[in-house]
């Protein structure tokens, strides 16, 4: 039996809900990438290696406090690389007046919310 026939047979043997699950699993990363590529085009992309330190200012004249991001690895590093997205997300939080990204060996950049 050819590989295509086996694949077809295996597919038909699955219940409809399992087929739906697999279609979603195959489609979701593509949808996410498409969304990601749109982000890429309008975000200020910079290859921060490692990720920048992040500070927030809670009052116009207040100090910048360092933010504990807890998990900078993975998706948050990605968010930081697309810093525009990350700043926008932080600015949505109540009590955030400005955000400062301080990449290593570069001048920090301040973003007023």
């Amino acid at each position, binding site marked *: 039996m050819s590989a295509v026939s086996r694949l077809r047979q295996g597919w038909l043997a699955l219940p409809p809900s399992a087929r739906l699950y697999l279609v979603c699993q195959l489609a979701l990363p593509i949808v996410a990438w498409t969304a990601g590529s749109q982000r890429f085009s309008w975000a200020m992309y910079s290859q921060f290696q490692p990720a920048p330190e992040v500070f927030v200012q809670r009052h116009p004249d207040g100090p910048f406090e360092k933010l504990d991001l807890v998990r900078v690895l993975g998706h948050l590093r990605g968010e930081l690389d697309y810093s525009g997205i990350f700043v926008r*997300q932080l600015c949505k939080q109540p009590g955030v007046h400005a955000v400062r990204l301080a990449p290593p060996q570069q001048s920090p950049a301040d973003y007023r919310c």
Partner: protein
Amino acid sequence: MLIRLLVGAACLLAGLEMGALLDRALAPGTIALPLAGLPILPRAAVPWAIGAWIGCAIAFTVGWRRRLAGAGLLATMGYLLLMDARTYSNHLYLLCLLVLILVWADDETARTLLRVQLSIVYAYAAIGKVNVSFLSGAALLPYTRTVLPESWLRVEVLAPLALLTLLAEGFLAVGFWSERLRPLAWAVGLGLHLGAVALVQEGRMGVLIFGVAMVGLYASFGGAFGQRDGGAAGQRGVG
């Protein structure tokens, strides 16, 4: 049985990781980054949430009220996965999917779904690495700089390492489906995940959890040697 043991063990490790993470993420003064509009868990509720997670993970692993324990585990993990950008992680998302399959599907369907899931994970992981940033080795630099000697942190070393990673993942996406290549796929997969655990310092627990979960998926194809179509482990049922 082996699949559930490994997935359950990965969930158990993820629960311990989440406990430590929430302790910092919900500390006073930190800023929440809501992901899906779910309310942020009060700090006082963390021991209860993690307790429920660990309890359900243990019951699920040993098979005690498996479906009920799995449903509880899925609810707890799913909530924390979507609660905050800082508690979301790709390996937790994968664990939610694996528990969902093991709770919801019958044995034969679950085995098929887990096998295809393995191919989906590795295929997309490989495709996602086809870019200059990864293939130049630059993406590996933050993870390897503390474990590799300074003289090795060069494009001549890191670029082949990156290419090897991509090729290994591409091979793993298809290798398990061939009886002839399956022993090699086991060896490559174990080597890849053990190597990643050894190399990565920041986020090592996450890499370990991902590795244990993926080996759970390998088990859906049966053993490495001479076991046909799921082998002895597969024939006993996945859950």
